[in-house]
């Protein structure tokens, strides 16, 4: 028997377990998945949760229920890899041998990496919404907050779901308007990027959207520390942004064992070939989803599109053949813009988000890079798609590759 071991049962790991079990013969392959958390969260739900608009049972499910029969689940966290012996060592010293390894342990927010962030103010004047507990704490804070200077801050790229901080700012604007207290709240969006998003045309559209909602943008802000006494972000070029309530996205880092194994870069992201997701240092190790260093967004859609191609890439690799179809960095993001509307972005390594229609060129029904109600409803509906179709690895009518057909590049970007 050959052994495939998947580390992490998040979006990428769970889809991988489901798809690989269907494709790899049960009398030839053992499949094992290692996960420390008992529950799998639908992470886009955290953002809505912070505004009290998502019930907890809608976004959490027990991990075992999402895995197929014929996959062994080991509960535990990974301590180290022994690549010479091809084993994974868990925190309780269990040794898990593999022939092929898939790393899908994602990234985690690391407030400890910025001086003043993870200290006594965490959960008081400093909040976040990238874990279940943080989203819950922020929900309680927002429910009783009396107003003041709200700052939405991104520490360093890359982060999970790079549009979520924008969505938070726009939803906060709606939230405080509905409560009749928008005049008591100033909102500032602080980013290390030169603008609202990573690619120019979307950055312009999204920047206009922020401006129209009276949200100030502080670009090119590389944070050095948070001054806990004066309650201000301090940048390396000595700018200060004071806050009463800070909602931050801490540095996102891959798992520590990735750094220790020598497979990772300086953020513990696995260095892989961006078309095949094969480690550049070990040809029996692949990485999927957020855990890799590929230059596209860290988002569930990326894990999904990768997995449309990965089974084939994996099987051809076993047979010593080149991949037939490589991953092109395709990602989509719904951007919730408040007031019951949303935008949709569709892009890849080479092509930035452009206006057009999705998933069917010219027909839609969704409009790209433009606010609409149907985009908002699609975002809400996506939760069902996630549980019912995406995680089990069933067919969804979206191409793994980006289509340029029907997309329009504005003349002046």
């Amino acid at each position, binding site marked *: 028997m050959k052994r495939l071991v998947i580390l992490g049962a998040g979006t990428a790991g769970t889809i991988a377990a489901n798809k690989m079990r269907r494709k790899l013969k049960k009398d030839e392959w053992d499949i094992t998945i290692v996960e420390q958390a008992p529950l799998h969260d639908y992470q886009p739900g955290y953002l809505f949760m912070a505004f009290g608009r998502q019930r907890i049972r809608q976004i959490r499910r027990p991990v075992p229920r999402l895995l197929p029969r014929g996959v062994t689940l080991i509960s535990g966290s990974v301590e180290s890899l022994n690549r010479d012996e091809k084993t994974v060592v868990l925190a309780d010293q269990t040794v898990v041998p593999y022939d092929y390894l898939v790393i899908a342990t994602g990234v985690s927010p690391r407030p400890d990496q910025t001086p003043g962030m993870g200290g006594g103010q965490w959960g008081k004047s400093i909040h976040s919404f990238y874990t279940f507990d943080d989203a819950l704490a922020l929900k309680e804070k927002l429910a009783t907050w009396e107003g003041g200077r709200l700052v939405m801050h991104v520490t360093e*790229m890359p982060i999970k779901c790079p549009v979520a901080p924008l969505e938070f700012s726009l939803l906060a604007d709606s939230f405080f308007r509905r409560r009749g207290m928008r005049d008591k709240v100033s909102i500032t969006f602080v980013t290390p990027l030169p603008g609202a998003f990573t690619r120019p045309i979307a950055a312009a559209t999204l920047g206009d959207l922020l401006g129209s909602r009276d949200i100030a943008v502080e670009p090119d802000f590389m944070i*050095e520390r948070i001054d806990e006494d004066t309650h201000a972000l301090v940048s*390396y070029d000595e700018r200060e942004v004071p806050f009463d309530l800070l909602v931050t996205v801490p540095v996102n880092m891959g798992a520590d064992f990735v750094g220790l194994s020598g497979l990772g870069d300086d953020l513990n992201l696995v260095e892989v070939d961006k078309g095949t997701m094969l480690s550049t240092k070990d040809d029996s190790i692949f990485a999927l989803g957020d855990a890799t260093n590929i230059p596209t967004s860290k988002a569930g859609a990326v894990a999904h599109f990768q997995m449309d191609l990965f089974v084939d890439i994996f099987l051809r690799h076993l047979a010593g053949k080149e991949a037939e179809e490589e991953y092109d960095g395709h990602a989509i993001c719904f951007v919730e813009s408040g007031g019951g509307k949303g935008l949709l972005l569709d892009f890849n390594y080479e092509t930035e988000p452009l206006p057009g229609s999705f998933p069917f060129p010219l027909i839609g029904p969704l409009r790209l890079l433009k606010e609409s109600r149907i985009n908002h409803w699609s975002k809400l509906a996506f939760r069902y798609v996630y549980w019912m179709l995406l995680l089990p690895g069933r067919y969804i009518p979206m191409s793994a590759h980006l289509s340029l057909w029907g997309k329009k590049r504005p003349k002046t970007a």
Partner: protein
Amino acid sequence: MPTQNMLGREIHVDDEGFLTEPDEWDEALGAELAKQIDIEMTDRHWEVVRFLRADFSERGETATTRRVDSVGGFSVKEQFALFPKKPAKKMAYVAGLPKPHGCV
């Protein structure tokens, strides 16, 4: 792809003036690029630029600010002092390398 004439040579650059062919670079050109963005090169500047060049030839991508700190040993604070305001962009520009892509 646009080209630019510098030091009597045709240099391939992108829309923002970053070199697209890192092999067209030498230190004389680096000094010229630094002049264009008002940076006076000291020995310390050259140490940073040489680190970036060496790291790029090994890994095929431009080191991020974080990497110039953790691997190169130049603190982020010092990078800001040497290449004010936008060190990541300016370091890559002077070293004749593509903009680092921390940004997706």
